[in-house]
């Protein structure tokens, strides 16, 4: 493995930062919209709720691995809160929500660089831009943390840190720009854009597919699938799933970037789909295996939530009900297929997020509320059918899958070669907690 001179890289980065032109913002006070305190209060709450999902995810994933890897796995989520939050402040927000650059591959605005130019800025929706930037930043954090579930229990910490930093820059930020920025090409696709309310393509498909690609490239854990890996603490997993469900209200209902009718709709659909997903999963499990498991319930909650994520803004309660149920059945089948194919997606990041996100992004087409279709028809100045919208959705999903898969392949191979991403056999046997972090998750509890 080659050595990299960190000191040189750090000093180079500092010099670059110092040389960057300092643009100060002078704004016409008359043009500044007033702060809508109701919307701002809800968006602040949503931001907090989405942040809460990340420790929730750490608990969910942490409980599912072997005792010796619990801290290492939880650190995958926690370290994302450090790395991605800093990157987001430095350049992530600019790459995602700045005006088109590099032919629309990503955005860029020097005002957003280091969040320098938004100190006074209030968005048209009446919320300070800081709130919007922080809200979106939480999505950037949770996406690579979701991905980590596919490669749990077998990656080195340093390699992982470098990988998620590069992944955020080269995969998440461009995708986020394409789908959510006003001038992103998927945002403008078709009559009224590809529908991705809160991140079906940006968050779930991108993390799920990238996770699958990384899992295939890095190879299975030692002994997989012969040695059974038992979850070390399902109680923690259940608490994590609960936090994710609660946090998802911020994730989806916050994505309306307002506090009003759209927020109420998104919140309702989220609740309906999560509950239906959970119920469907435990029923399917009971019919198939004879027992309904706690982990099954938690997985169903996630499948329902993931599927409703792109749809929460456009479907109605019956649609959310059907989406949740379909997502649970299809994700359940996807995990059975995984067992047959024997690839090692450790914690089913692809099985739940990749598959569930795709199901939601495509199926939502059939449950769009009429008013949305009417608006789309007006925008298209003529006819706009469900099939037209379905092809737009499929295009967005296809582009997200292809881009995430290709970019992740390059990144995994590069990081593994240069910095070492895959843990060696002895590290894996001794466990990530002891060999990488020098700690143990539990005191004197029994092994599993």
């Amino acid at each position, binding site marked *: 493995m080659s050595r990299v001179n960190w000191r040189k890289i750090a000093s180079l980065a500092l010099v670059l930062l110092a040389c960057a032109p300092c643009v100060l913002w002078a704004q016409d006070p008359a043009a500044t919209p007033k702060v809508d305190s109701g919307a701002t209060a809800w968006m602040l709450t949503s931001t907090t709720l989405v942040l809460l999902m990340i420790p929730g995810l750490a608990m969910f994933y942490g409980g599912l691995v072997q005792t010796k890897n619990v801290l290492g796995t939880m650190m995958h989520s926690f370290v994302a809160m450090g790395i991605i939050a800093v990157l987001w402040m430095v350049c992530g927000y600019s790459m995602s929500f700045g005006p088109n650059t590099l032919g629309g591959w990503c955005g860029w605005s020097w005002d957003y660089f280091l969040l320098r130019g938004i100190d006074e800025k209030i968005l048209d929706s009446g919320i300070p831009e800081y709130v919007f930037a922080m809200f979106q930043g939480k999505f950037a954090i949770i996406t690579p943390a979701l991905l980590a579930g596919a490669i749990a229990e077998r990656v080195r910490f340093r390699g992982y840190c470098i990988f998620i930093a590069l992944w955020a820059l080269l995969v998440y930020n461009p995708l986020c720009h394409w789908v959510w920025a006003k001038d992103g090409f998927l945002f403008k696709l078709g009559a009224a854009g590809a529908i991705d309310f809160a991140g079906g393509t940006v968050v779930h498909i991108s993390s799920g597919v990238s996770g699958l690609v990384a899992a295939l490239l890095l190879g299975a854990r030692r002994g997989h699938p012969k040695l059974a890996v038992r979850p070390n603490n399902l109680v923690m997993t259940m608490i994590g799933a609960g936090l994710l469900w609660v946090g998802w209200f911020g994730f989806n209902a916050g994505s309306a970037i307002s506090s009003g009718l759209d927020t109420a709709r998104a919140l309702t659909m989220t609740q309906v789909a999560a509950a239906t997903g959970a119920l469907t999963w435990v029923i399917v499990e009971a019919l198939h295996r004879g027992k309904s498991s706690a982990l099954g319930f938690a997985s169903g909650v996630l499948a329902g939530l993931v599927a409703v994520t792109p749809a929460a803004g456009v479907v109605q309660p019956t649609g959310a009900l059907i989406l949740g149920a379909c997502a649970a059945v299809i994700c359940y089948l996807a995990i059975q297929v995984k067992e047959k194919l024997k690839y090692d997606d450790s914690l089913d990041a692809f099985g739940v997020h990749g598959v569930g996100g795709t199901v939601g992004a495509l199926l939502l087409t059939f449950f769009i509320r009429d008013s949305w279709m009417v608006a789309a028809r007006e925008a298209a100045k003529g006819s706009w059918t469900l099939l037209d919208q379905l092809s737009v959705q499929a295009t967005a999903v296809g582009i997200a899958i292809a881009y995430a898969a290709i970019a992740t392949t390059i990144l995994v191979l590069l990081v593994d070669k240069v910095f070492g991403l895959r843990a060696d056999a002895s590290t894996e*046997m*001794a*466990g990530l907690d*002891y060999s990488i972090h020098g*700690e143990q998750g539990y005191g*004197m*509890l*029994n092994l599993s």
Partner: protein
Amino acid sequence: MKMITAIIRESQLDQVREALIAAEIERITVTRVSGHGQQQGENIYRGQKVVPNLIPKTRLDIAVNDEFVEITCNTIIEAARTNGSGSVGDGKIFISPLEECIRIRTGERGGRAI
């Protein structure tokens, strides 16, 4: 019949278990224990190196018939040694006579029950 009790490093458990299974010794009991040996353990707690009072170890209990004692011990020694030639803290093996062994399901006794 002998009772073999091995105290090994936690980090070597997988390796020892796999080696034992490869040597067809598949009936073992594993517990997490802690204690003192020659080794001075070192943990990191908030950036400080600390020496804990008791070092966590893994204990294997294996009941074997006499002809399996050698192979069992050799397998454990080989798999539990670290850094090639071994280092302080790799553990110990205790062998004690085993008076009787009963398989609960059938009531069989002695060597056949092991």
